[in-house]
């Protein structure tokens, strides 16, 4: 979009040749030689007389641009991007490390929690078993004592019973002796005892 400097198109409007400001008089012919595209002249992009100048300046500008890009801009921007990538990678590594530390802390916390729980369980268990043992021991002692007393008592009863029974047979013998003496006549104590024994054996 450049109708720009060309208001001073000397061929078209020779009345205002000075408007250009750039060497309007010295080379009016050459200046305008390739801008007569409007009428009859060559179409500006296809005007070979401008080619050397365009190529020359394009070469200068493009080489300058290339050198600027290659030597300065690209290393600079590449450096920025690399530094950023390195920083991000470093931060990620750091975050990873922090996360690992957190995980380790959680693991150790859980381990100590579990250990404490185990210990508490052990203590409870130990206490319980100790108490149970004690109770058992006491109970056994009590039972033993009771059993002893029972045995003594049973023995005592047996003794009493045996003595009583002995007395019974003595009484029976004496009674038998007395009864038989009264009925039949005198019998020996031994005969009466044998008879009592025979009867009580047969009874039993």
């Amino acid at each position, binding site marked *: 979009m450049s109708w*720009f*400097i*060309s208001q001073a198109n000397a061929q078209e409007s020779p009345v205002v040749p000075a408007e250009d400001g750039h060497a309007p008089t010295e080379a009016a012919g*050459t200046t305008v030689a390739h*801008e007569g595209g409007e009428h009859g002249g060559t179409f500006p992009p296809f005007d070979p007389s*401008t080619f050397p*100048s*365009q190529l020359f300046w394009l070469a200068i500008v493009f080489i300058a641009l290339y050198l600027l890009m290659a030597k300065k*801009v690209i290393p*600079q921007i590449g450096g920025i991007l690399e530094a950023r990538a390195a920083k991000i990678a470093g931060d990620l590594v750091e975050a990873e490390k922090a996360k690992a530390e957190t995980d380790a802390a959680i693991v150790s916390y859980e381990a100590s929690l579990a250990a404490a729980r185990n210990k508490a369980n052990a203590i409870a268990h130990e206490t319980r078993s100790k108490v149970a043992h004690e109770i058992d021991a006491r109970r056994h002692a009590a039972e033993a004592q009771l059993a002893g007393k029972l045995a003594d008592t049973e023995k005592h009863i047996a003794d009493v019973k045996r003595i009583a029974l002995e007395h019974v047979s003595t009484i029976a013998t004496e009674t038998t002796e007395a009864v038989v003496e009264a009925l039949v006549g005198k019998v020996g104590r031994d005969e009466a005892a044998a008879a009592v024994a025979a009867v009580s054996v047969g009874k039993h």
Partner: protein
Amino acid sequence: MADVRTDPIHQFGIQKLVDINIDGYDVSFTNSSLFMVLTLAAIALVLLWGSSSRAVVPGRAQTVAELSYEFVANTLRTAAGEGGMRFMPLVFSLFMFVLTANIFGMVPYFFTVTSHIIVTAALALLVIFTVTIYGFYKNGTHFLKLFVPSGVPAAIVPLVTLIEIISFLSRPLSLAVRLFANMLAGHITLKVFAGFVVTLTSLGAFGFLGALLPLVMVVALTALEFLVAFLQAYVFTILTCMYLNDALHPGH
């Protein structure tokens, strides 16, 4: 259409600003040269200023510089692989130059450097010579396998090779003409519609109303031309990358 204000071709005219003559060649500093230098200055300003602070969290200018860099780097890496990164300065320079020149052309009264075929042709030839020379330097005669794709039946190899050669030779032409023609046509279209506005408004009330339509067109076309300005720079860049890929890996 003699009126400078409505002449669509006038904008492409080249005026000498400083007469320079070297060895019989006219290498005067023209408006085209001026805008080439301005393009260079703008690129240098944005990229150097943008990357000078080297912040880890980028500011605006640095974001622009980094985005341009990464955009071109990704394009190049995708098209030509890691080995193509040695051409980063060339491809980046091409992209930045074409893009900035195209965008500059959208500013009223600015000259569009890329609307001249000699400029686009020079850039295209630079690409093709780089590809060809580097291709032969890197691969030797193996580079010629580019013209003989593998897996083609022997009977049609001559035909395919011919097509490949024509295709290779037409690359600089298409590269140059595509950019040149897009910029030229876009600017002519814009100027024609803008000229309608000027002409119609000078016809009184009716013309004033009639001028609304081309005015809307100009607005829409301006948006389109901004898109084209970027797109053509991108197309030029990605094609360069693909051609460089051929030089790096000629075996198809």
